[in-house]
């Protein structure tokens, strides 16, 4: 009995530390303390669990913990550009653990299982299984093992929903009579298939929303597991993780002007309908790195707008060099970061922080937009749809209504882009044809490197001016 209370007390302390951990994440100044609080809470909870009187053998637990550490450490040391796929893998591992525990509980409890318990277990196992395969597909797309473009076919939603329906029907059959144990593996397999169908149609540009959504699924799976096992620390940790994923999903949806139901039912493919309407020849103004360097050197205020293209080209370190050179010349350089720039929420901030750009130079959408009219140069690096003015002006545009960065309000816009081909969403960007827009064609890293060379005091032409 005493051991029981000790376990409960340590779990309560762990819960308090988890909440503090997230609270301290509100500011970069206290955030690392938050990680420490989380670590202490988790260590305390795990250590106390070893004193659980139900435990009869430890050998496999130790082996499994060692294996977990051996997988976890490399996953914690991945390169910053690989963080989105690592996050998807981590969702997959979390969902796998929760689903396996639910499956194991079912086989432990039959034949003495109530309809109520069966409902909880079925729900937990279905969501856990679909989140597992869904996250694996997301990780595959982000790692570019699987095609990043959306894979769509006619009647897709009907097929996917029928598969989900089949899983639910099997769950109902099991609830009516939990003794039909042969239905259980079928329910698991169908849920796994549904996870694949759910994420396969989704394109790379929608990954921030999908990752957030899978995050909330995994969290709610853990909370459900807490209900199944009557373990409150799981209910709390799952609710926190689920709430976090849910909030991020809502933020991502708003940033893309999508309804939550649209995302919930995985109808991501719709946006990708090619808007290749008016294709008349329009002129673009292109510039060389030399000209770009001269304009940047003469500017007072520069706003850099990074996007996924910067991450792909690994250009963040060159961008930091540019930031340093311009700052040294007295130019005020800031960064405008759209919520869905990159492949996961906050992706650009991490890459720029890695390159040593101070975080107080990074502005979010609401902070950046009022500043654009006072900006001399908006330098767009590998971002496309999030700068598209058609989202504000053209009602026929597929992204009409999406909040975008008002880069064209800057005196000069410079866009670094590989070619004139439209972005992921296949939507033409009128920004490129404006009179105050200069296109710098090429790989983001090379173009920024060339500008940096021109601006460097030791060489280049601008310094001699």
């Amino acid at each position, binding site marked *: 009995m005493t051991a029981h209370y000790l376990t409960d007390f340590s779990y309560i302390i762990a819960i308090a530390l988890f909440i503090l951990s997230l609270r301290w994440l509100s500011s970069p100044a206290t955030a690392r303390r938050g990680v420490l609080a*989380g670590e202490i809470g988790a260590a305390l909870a795990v250590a106390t669990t070893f004193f659980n009187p139900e435990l009869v053998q430890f050998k496999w*637990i130790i082996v499994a913990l060692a294996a977990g550490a051996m997988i976890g450490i490399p996953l914690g040391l991945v390169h910053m550009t690989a963080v989105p796929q690592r996050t998807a893998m981590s969702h997959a591992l979390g969902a796998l653990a929760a689903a396996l525990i639910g499956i194991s509980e079912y086989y*432990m409890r039959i034949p003495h299982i109530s309809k109520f318990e069966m409902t909880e277990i079925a729900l937990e196992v279905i969501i856990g299984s679909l989140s597992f395969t869904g996250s694996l597909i997301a990780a595959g797309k982000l790692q570019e093992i699987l095609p990043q473009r959306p894979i769509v076919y006619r009647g897709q939603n009907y097929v996917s929903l029928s598969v989900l329906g089949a899983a639910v029907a099997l769950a109902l059959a099991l609830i009516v009579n939990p003794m039909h144990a042969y239905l259980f593996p079928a329910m698991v397999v169908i849920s796994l298939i549904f996870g694949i169908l759910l994420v396969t149609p989704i394109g790379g540009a929608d990954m921030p929303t999908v990752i957030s959504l899978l995050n909330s699924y995994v969290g709610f799976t853990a909370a459900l597991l807490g209900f199944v096992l009557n373990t409150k620390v799981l209910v709390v940790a799952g609710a926190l993780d689920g709430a976090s994923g849910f909030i991020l999903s809502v933020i991502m949806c708003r940033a893309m002007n999508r309804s939550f139901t649209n995302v919930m039912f995985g109808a991501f493919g719709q946006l990708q309908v090619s808007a290749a309407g008016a294709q008349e020849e329009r002129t673009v103004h292109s510039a060389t790195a030399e000209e770009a360097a001269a304009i940047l050197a003469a500017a007072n205020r520069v706003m850099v707008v990074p996007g996924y293209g910067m991450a792909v080209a690994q250009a963040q370190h060159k961008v930091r060099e540019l930031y340093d050179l311009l700052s040294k010349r007295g130019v005020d350089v800031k960064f405008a970061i759209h919520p869905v720039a990159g492949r996961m929420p906050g992706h650009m901030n991490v890459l720029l922080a890695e390159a040593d750009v101070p975080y107080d130079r990074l502005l979010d959408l609401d902070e950046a937009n009022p500043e654009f009219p006072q900006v001399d140069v908006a330098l767009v690096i590998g971002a496309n749809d999030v700068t598209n003015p058609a989202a504000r002006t053209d009602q026929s545009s597929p992204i009409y209504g999406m909040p975008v960065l008002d880069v064209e309000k800057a005196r000069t816009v410079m866009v670094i882009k590989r070619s004139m081909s439209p972005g992921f969403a296949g939507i033409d960007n009128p920004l490129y044809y404006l009179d105050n827009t200069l296109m710098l064609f090429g790989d983001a890293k090379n173009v920024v490197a060339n500008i940096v060379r021109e601006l460097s005091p030791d060489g280049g032409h601008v310094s001699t001016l």
Partner: protein
Amino acid sequence: MPAGFIENLYVFVLAGFVGFEVIRRVSPLLHTPLMALTNALDAIVVIAAIIIAGRQGTALSAILGSIAVAAAFSNMVGGFLITDRMLRMFKASGRKGQ
């Protein structure tokens, strides 16, 4: 309906509200570390996995439990590690380098 259900529901609803209020205050700057950290906290399911793996039961539950322990614990270790690595990189102006 099991006795614990209503109690757990209270806890779930309250924790959901606390989570909502706390996470709403997290700066968009730190949304990637937030996701990494909540994944690490969510990996607390490892405690349930440990019990499944180690209690008196069938070979199946020992195997499933052990895999779950490895999966969840890798998330815990990797999640805290990468969150701290990311947060170490966030520096304010005027405090450059290590």
